[in-house]
Structures are given as C-alpha cells and as structure tokens.
C-alpha cells in the first residue's frame, strides 16, 4: 500500500510547481517511517553516508516510527538500517535491502522506505522474499494458498461487477470504489467508533448493500431510463470513481492504515503453508459467501430471474420478469458483497483510498477471463487470476506479478474473447 502513497505523491509532485508552496522543511533531508504490519517500530538506528563516504548523521526512529536526517546539500546518499537494532520478531522484508542509495533533489525532503515484515512468518498478501530454506514445492504450496486468498477476494468483487454488466451492459469503473467504501466503513466503525471488527464488518456489509441499492435507485436506474448510451455511462462511472476516490482521500488521508483488530497475528503452520489465522478464517468466510450467492443464483426464484435477465433482458422481460427489480436486487447484493471484499482486502493488506481502484483491473481480468456477464465464469476467472498472480512470482519478480496477470488478460482477449466459460456471440 505504501506504493499507492508514493504513486500519489509522485503524481502530485508532477503538478507541484503550479500549486501553492507545500509545507516542506527548508533544507534538504532524508526521512522515513518504519512500520511493521501497520504498527510503528521505534528505536531503530538509521545512518546516512554521503557519496564520497563521509558520514553525515545518524537518527533513531521515534515512538511513531518516524526518523529524519538533514543533509547538507542535494546529491546521492547511502542510507543504512542497522538490523541489529530491530526489535525481536521484526525483520527486513528484503534482506539485501538494508542499505539503499537515494538521490536527494534540491530543496526537497526525500522519503526513504525500508520494508519490514514479521520475522519468520510471511504476510498474507505480501509474500516475503524467499527465505532460502524452504523447498520449491513448499513455496508452490504457500503461493497457491495465497493465490486462492487473493482469488477469492477478486471473485467476491467480480460477482457484482459481472452481474451488473450482464443485466445492464454497464462496464462499471466505479466498482472498485464499492470495495474501498466497504473497507472505509469498517475502518470507521472499528477504529474511530471502537466496535470490534466482526461487528464493524457486518455493519459495513449492510451499509454497502444500501449504498449499492441507492446507486441504482437514484443514479444508474435514472440514467438507464433517460436512455443514456453505454459509452456515456461507462465514462460517467469513471467520473463517479474519481469523485468517490478523492472523497475517500479527503476524509481518510493518503496513508494506508490497518484495522484495530487481528494485527500482527503470529503465523501458524499448516502442512507446508504458514499464514496468520485471520487468513484462514477470511478464506472460510469468502468461500461461504460465494457458495451462498452461488446457491441463491441456482435455486432461488430471484437468482434464476437474475441469470435470465443477464442472459437476455428482452426475453426475460417478455416472460414476465420485472427486470428493473432484478437489477436493483443485483446492485444491492453486489454492493454488500463488494463491501465484504473490501473488508477482506483491508484485512490482508491495509485500508487505503486507492485499494479498490488498484484491484479493479484484476477484477476486470477475472471477469473477462471467465466471460463477460456470466456469474460463474467470473468466479472461476477470478480464482485463476489470483492463483496466476501469486504463482507467477516463482519466475517473475514480485513487483511485476500484476504485469503477468494483465498480459494474460490481453492474450485472452486475443484468442478467446468470450472467456473460458462464455459462449460465442451471434452477430446481427
């Protein structure tokens, strides 16, 4: 999630000379915040050496994890984190990155990032660098587990996106913000109000459902009745996504933050897989919800109607199905499930204003892979995407794992645009 913050800072940096002067310190400096799973880490020694080898200064991280070293002038510096001063149970995520070379520009304070992780255990969605001792197959098992974890979250998000696309034809770029909304709601109840995360999550699912219902009732439904074209609606959804994202930024701030509960859980070992217990529970809940939604689609009247509308709205309408009502139910359930996906995503990463947008492309990948508009295709596609992303790190650097998934998305478009489970469309 740090990446998101850096990305945003850099983007704002691009616009900077037009903005009112930001509140930077006067001289050049290096600074940073040390965090382990969202918790500040204090008492860690950081030393800075100039390019010519002359030591500049040392600093020790404070109770908020922050440290800062002023430097005499712009230029290249070596920043070293003294690993022996790290508290017990905390280690560098990448062992070879205890010393970083950074460039400080004139008049600016440079942020330096040392990624920390619990020693020994690997984080749920952020796999640590290979710690050498484990065998290849253990690693594959671990990655498969993490892939399922990610895939299930994507699948939860994809369910609503795919059904909305199937029933209304809308490619909803604001669907990611439904996830962020859910995570933000849960964060509000959990951290600000102080309710336990389980209840906060339940509340956020209910509010997410209401949010979905409201979006259709007061926004998309009206646009449909006005006869707005699909392309116009798609761009409107982009506007909505931008609007919501910056509303989240406004209230939440640019930094990611964890929920108040289930942080820094020690990992448990199950066979070759090691993960925090929360990940197992989260996967259980995700599976349960997917099964419930799946069974509802197959067995209940409304579920059948939803699939009929998704298949052929005109035919469904002529056979007496109230299409508008079905679409509204889909939006409501879609919003609730997306909220849940947001909470789960916040649990495995951090809550941030960009979390939904960042996973949206993966959701699109899952949905297209499974075949646009088919609910079960989206499920299968999403899990394949999740697995692919994590397993690809066997050969691809972790930072590029999303690239592989997006490339696969493009290849699927090329060779099988109807997706894995979709059927070929009839023209004319």
């Amino acid at each position, binding site marked *: 999630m740090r990446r998101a913050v*850096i*990305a*945003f800072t*850099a*983007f*704002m*940096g*691009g*616009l900077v000379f*037009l*903005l*009112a002067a930001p*509140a930077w310190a006067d001289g050049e400096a290096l600074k940073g915040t040390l965090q382990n799973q969202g918790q500040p880490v204090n008492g860690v020694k950081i030393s800075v050496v100039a390019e010519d080898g002359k030591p500049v200064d040392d600093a020790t991280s404070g109770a908020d994890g922050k440290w800062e070293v002023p430097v005499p002038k712009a230029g290249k510096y070596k920043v070293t984190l003294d690993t022996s001063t790290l508290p017990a149970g905390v280690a560098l995520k990448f062992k070879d990155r205890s010393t970083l070379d950074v*460039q400080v520009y004139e008049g600016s304070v440079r942020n330096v990032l040392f990624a920390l992780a619990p020693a020994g255990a690997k984080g749920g969605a952020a796999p640590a660098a290979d710690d050498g001792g484990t065998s290849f197959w253990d690693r594959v098992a671990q990655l498969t587990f993490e892939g399922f974890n990610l895939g299930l979250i994507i699948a939860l998000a994809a369910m609503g996106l795919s059904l909305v696309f199937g029933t209304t034809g809308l*490619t909803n770029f604001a669907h990611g913000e439904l996830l962020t909304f859910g995570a933000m709601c849960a964060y509000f109840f959990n951290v600000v109000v102080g309710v336990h995360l389980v209840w906060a999550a339940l509340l956020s699912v209910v509010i997410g459902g209401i949010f979905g219902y409201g979006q259709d009732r007061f926004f998309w439904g009206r*646009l449909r009745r*006005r*006869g*707005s*074209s*699909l*392309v*116009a609606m*798609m*761009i*409107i959804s*982009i*506007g*909505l*996504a*931008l*609007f*919501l*994202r*910056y*509303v989240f*930024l*406004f*209230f939440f*701030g*640019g930094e990611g933050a964890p929920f108040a509960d289930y942080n820094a859980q020690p990992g448990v070992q199950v066979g070759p897989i090691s993960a925090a217990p929360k990940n197992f529970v989260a996967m259980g809940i995700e599976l349960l919800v997917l099964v419930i939604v799946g069974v509802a689609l197959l067995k209940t009247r409304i579920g059948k109607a939803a699939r009929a509308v998704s298949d052929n709205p005109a035919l469904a309408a002529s056979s007496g199905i109230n299409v508008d009502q079905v679409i509204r139910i889909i939006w409501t359930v879609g919003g609730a499930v997306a909220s849940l996906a947001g909470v789960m995503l916040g649990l495995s990463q951090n809550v941030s204003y960009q979390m939904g947008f960042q996973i949206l*492309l993966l959701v*699109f*990948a899952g949905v*297209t892979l499974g075949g646009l508009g088919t609910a079960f295709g989206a499920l299968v596609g999403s899990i394949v995407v999740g697995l692919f992303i994590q397993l690809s790190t066997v050969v691809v*650097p972790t*930072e*590029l794992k*999303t*690239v592989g998934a*997006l*490339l696969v*998305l*493009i290849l699927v*478009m*090329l060779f099988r*645009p109807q997706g894995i489970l979709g059927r070929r469309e009839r023209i004319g």
Partner: protein
Amino acid sequence: MDWNAILITTVKASIGLETVVYALAAIGVNIQFGYAGLLNFGQAAFLGVAAYGMAVTVATFHLPFWLGIAIGLAATIVLAFLLGIPTLRLRADYLAIVTIAAAEIVRLVFRSVKFSSVFGGSDGRQNFSGDFFAMNPYAPGTYGIGPISFNERVTWILTVGWVLIAICCGLVYLLMKSPWGRVLKAIREDEDAVRSLGKNVFSYKMQALVLGGLVGCLGGFLFALGQASVQPDLFSTEFTFYAYTIVILGGAARVFSPVVGAAIFWVLLVFVGNTLSEAVSAGLLPSLFTVNNIGAVRFMLVGLGLMLLLIFRPQGIFGDKREIALDAR
C-alpha cells in the same frame, strides 16, 4: 487572501506546460474517441513510452537527442500496433479494458526495480534535456507581460508546445474535412454499415489509433523535457481520465475543443486549488479542511464535473448535440 497571486498563477496556467501537455494528449484522444469512437484508455502509456523512449536513449545509453525522439516515436507506433491488432476487431469496451491494462503494464515495468538500470525505477530518468535547451533561441531573462512572464527555458518549451498544438490542430482540421475523416466518423456511428460499403474498417481504426497516439506522444516529449525528468507515476491511468474529461469538456469531435478544454481544465484546477489553500491558511474554511486534504477537493470536483457534463451537457461547451457520439443512439 492573496488574490493577486491567485490570478497570476491562474492566468499562467492557461498557457502553461500542463495545459500544453494535456491539450496534445486530448487532441490524440479526440481523434481516437471523438471522431473514430475508439475507447483508448491507455493514452498515458503512449505519452509514457515516448517520454521514456527519448529519456532512456539519451540518459541511459548516452545517444543523441534526435535519435531519442525517433525512438520515442517508433515506440509509440509499436505500442499502437500491439494494442490495436488484438482489440480493434472486438467490441468497444474490450478495447477500453485492454488499453487500461496495457497502460498499467507499461507503468509497472517503468517503475520496477528489476529494470531500474534502464528506466531508473520510481525515480525515473533525468539529465536528457540538455540538447533541447541548447537549441533555445531565447537569451536568459524573463519573457511576458508584466507579472505574467516565464524564464527563457519555460518560454522555449511553451513556444515549441504551442507551435506543435497549432500544427496538430491544422492536421486534424484537414483530415476531418476530407473523405478520410468521413470514413472515421462513419465508423464511430456504425462500423458494420461502413464495412458493407467496402471500407477496410480495421485499417482506419488502426490509423486513428496510431495518429492519436503520435499526437499524444508529442505531449509526452514536452512533459519530460519541460520537467527535465521522467517518472513512471506521471503516466498513471488518471492522466488518461483527465484527458477524456478535457475532450468532453470542450466537446468531442471538434477541432479546437481539446485545446480550449485543456486551458479551461487547468485554469479551473489551479484557480480552485489556490483559492482553497489560500482560504485554508487564512482560516476561512471549517477545520475539516486542512492543507493536507484540500488538494483532494479539486479532483473530487473533476469527477463530479465529468459526471455532470455527461449527464446534462454531453456535447460539451462547443459541441453540436445532434452530432456528438455520446448521447443515446
């Protein structure tokens, strides 16, 4: 409230580097989306590969500046073909998803540690604009009227930028008056009809994609040169969305609308941003608004503006309602 400073920065923004860059990107989007109906959501990637093509050639491999420009142009064309060949035969929303995915791929590769020896990771590349500014005909000093003036470097880049904008607008004007432009507009309406009249729709869409990418890539060069630096996160998906906002603001399928749209977009953004931050520091706003979160308000307004435009005035400021591609068909 320092209205004087606010007004000066606002007026400067109307012709500043951002306006130039976004205008070129938007002219490209207008060719693709406004005239041909192609939903290219990866315009940022076209600017990115051009800027990086140039910057990497000069800064990483120490080759001449003009070769850098040539490589940037070539990279843009290659990207257009890579994106176009698989997707231009598919439905419009498929192109949208593929191009947005491609833009993310390009950005992630540029910022990756793996390739940082070439692209420079998230710091990007610097030290490539020397040859460009060596060509600067302006002597050191400031140029402009009263407080609305720029130093010789900015004046030089803005001169080049506005000349390029003029050339591109002229090009679009000539093309869209011609039978070539007629085929493009017809494809936007209904490509099957155009096919049934013996036109190679795929070829025209590809030409539009390449042309729009090339116009946008000029913006990429200027962005990099103007800041004397390229960073991967300048070319984020939001960049593309702002370019679309600009096109729709001005009115799709109008020659000058991207330029006027870009100027209005940046004038509003800078004016609102400056006014709000002045108001915060003067304590005129409720304590909910702080120096840190006030920037977000401007982009909230962009999102809101984009929605309202499409709902209430899809033809934009200059468009003709009967003639634009956005309302119900």
